């Protein structure tokens, strides 16, 4: 059995944590923009963090659930409903076959993640389910999800005991607190940090930047330039999710999940891995401020998020055990 897309969204793709091990061939890892929210959605339904999820942007798709299933949504709040009834984020929901999952208003955030206990039957390309739009490979037929696409589930479970009679859905009575979102973005100095002169360094740290409308899965361009005249050129060198590049005119661009593997712009800073989830939830027009942190702080921030997910996974698996039976 399966789910069916019954209305197109603006950009909804199948993603997982990404495709590693192929950067030397120019193949970027891609993957979810907000790995923490995707991991939370997966954990809530008892999945590992590697499981494929649907990443939605606003306005988002509508889904017809063609079998009983358990789902969880985390990340952006786009007012999710099942058959018109609001359902909470960050809480597992069991939905009856024939239910429609729809999204209404944009409340907070920029990217939502839908995970299913039944797990999406997506073939791996180079070890990952992530959609590689440029290569038209990975994910669901290498493309954004379209009306009419029918994605099979890998498993089915019986929820009879908790989905009684004609009740369309049940919200399971446990939830997790959303991780705190910090408005300043923790960054580390990049390899070419010293290519900035003092006024540029000062502006980088003190300026409030606006995320421009040139903000997508490849990168976020910031509106306000900093003082910079490019006199040197960097020979193309490796980049990463969160690399802050300084363009010749002084504009900054933060590379996001679908960034190119290498680039020739100076890498003046790098967003701490643990700060990327919060950054990924910023809409164009949002204001951000950078804050330099130590390596110890950055490593610890990531470790704490991984530990949070690990604890959540264990707790949810324990709670799910008596609730579900695989058929």
């Amino acid at each position, binding site marked *: 059995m399966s789910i069916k897309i019954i209305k197109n969204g603006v950009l909804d793709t199948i993603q997982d944590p990404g495709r590693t091990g192929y950067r*030397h061939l120019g193949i970027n890892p891609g993957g979810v923009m907000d790995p923490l929210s995707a991991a939370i959605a997966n954990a809530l339904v008892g999945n590992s963090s590697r499981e494929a999820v649907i990443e939605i942007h606003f306005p988002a798709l509508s889904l017809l659930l063609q079998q009983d299933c358990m789902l969880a949504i985390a990340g952006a709040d786009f007012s999710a409903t099942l058959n018109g009834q609001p359902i909470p984020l960050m809480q597992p929901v069991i939905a009856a076959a024939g239910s429609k999952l729809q999204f209404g208003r944009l409340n907070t955030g920029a990217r939502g993640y839908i995970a299913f206990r039944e797990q999406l039957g997506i073939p791996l390309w180079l070890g990952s389910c992530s959609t590689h739009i440029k290569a038209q490979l990975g994910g669901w037929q290498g493309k954004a999800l379209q009306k009419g696409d029918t994605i099979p589930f890998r498993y089915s479970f019986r929820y009879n005991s908790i989905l009684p009679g004609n009740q369309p859905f049940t919200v399971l009575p446990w939830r997790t607190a959303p991780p705190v979102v910090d408005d300043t973005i923790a960054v*580390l100095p990049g390899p070419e940090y010293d290519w900035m002169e003092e006024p540029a360094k000062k502006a980088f740290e003190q300026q409030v930047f606006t995320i421009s409308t040139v903000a997508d899965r490849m990168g976020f361009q910031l509106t306000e330039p900093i003082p910079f005249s490019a006199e040197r050129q*960097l*020979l*193309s*060198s490796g*980049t990463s999710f969160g690399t802050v590049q300084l363009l010749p005119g002084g504009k900054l661009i933060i590379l996001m999940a679908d960034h190119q593997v*290498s680039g020739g712009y100076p890498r003046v800073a790098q967003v701490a891995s643990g700060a990327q989830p919060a950054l990924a939830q910023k809409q164009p027009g949002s204001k951000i401020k950078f804050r330099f942190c130590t*390596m110890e702080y950055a490593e610890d921030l990531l470790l704490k998020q991984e530990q949070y997910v690990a604890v959540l996974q264990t707790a949810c698996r324990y709670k799910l055990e008596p609730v579900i039976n695989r058929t």
Partner: protein
Amino acid sequence: MPFAFPYSISPLGDTALVIMLENRMDIDLNKAIIALYHRLQQTLQDIIEDMVPGYCSLTVYYAPGKARIRKPEGISLFTYISSLVERNMPLVNNADETVTRLVRIPVCYEAEYAPDINTLAEAKSITPAKVTALHSAGTYIVYMIGFLPGFAYMGPVDERIALPRKTVPQPVQSGSVGIAGAQTGIYPFDSPGGWHIIGRTPVKMFDPAANPPVTLRAGDQIQFYPISRYEYQNY
């Protein structure tokens, strides 16, 4: 024996680091990078997730979860991985030529597939035929793969056909062979691009059915040979 060139190691955030040599396009520097890449691939494969060998830099992406288990208390992961890299630097075999392959690639340089060959020839005051002859006479090294999946940065091209890239990128067809400065490259996909297109190859630089889907590797040696329009179409 110490590593042949001065280098520095800087963090690229909390899950990657960059080993930088002098920022200069140079075959010897690039060879040292590729030799280092092979060395780290063999010795640190269990904690390194990915690497990008560049012209004169090597970016190393590590898996924090796997590295944490081994890391001594009290130092950062970055310090730990840096020390592992440092330990490997003197053991890099700069003379390692065993991995070098020679790959011959057919190119049709006829006007239909070479929208910029006349402009380039004019700018360099030579004939298009001379451009073809010079481009296909050289043996090039793949400095790195980047930009697009399977895009190989190669060079150096003969000075007589070297021309800075266009200021405004234009749509480029997949398979197009271009020149930018002293570099030559092949577009694996249709893409906007600023390189001067002087021909097209029927060989797929990115083949989704293959695993891995990219044929060329950093360090490969490349020769181009001219083919006719007929040969291109029936390749």
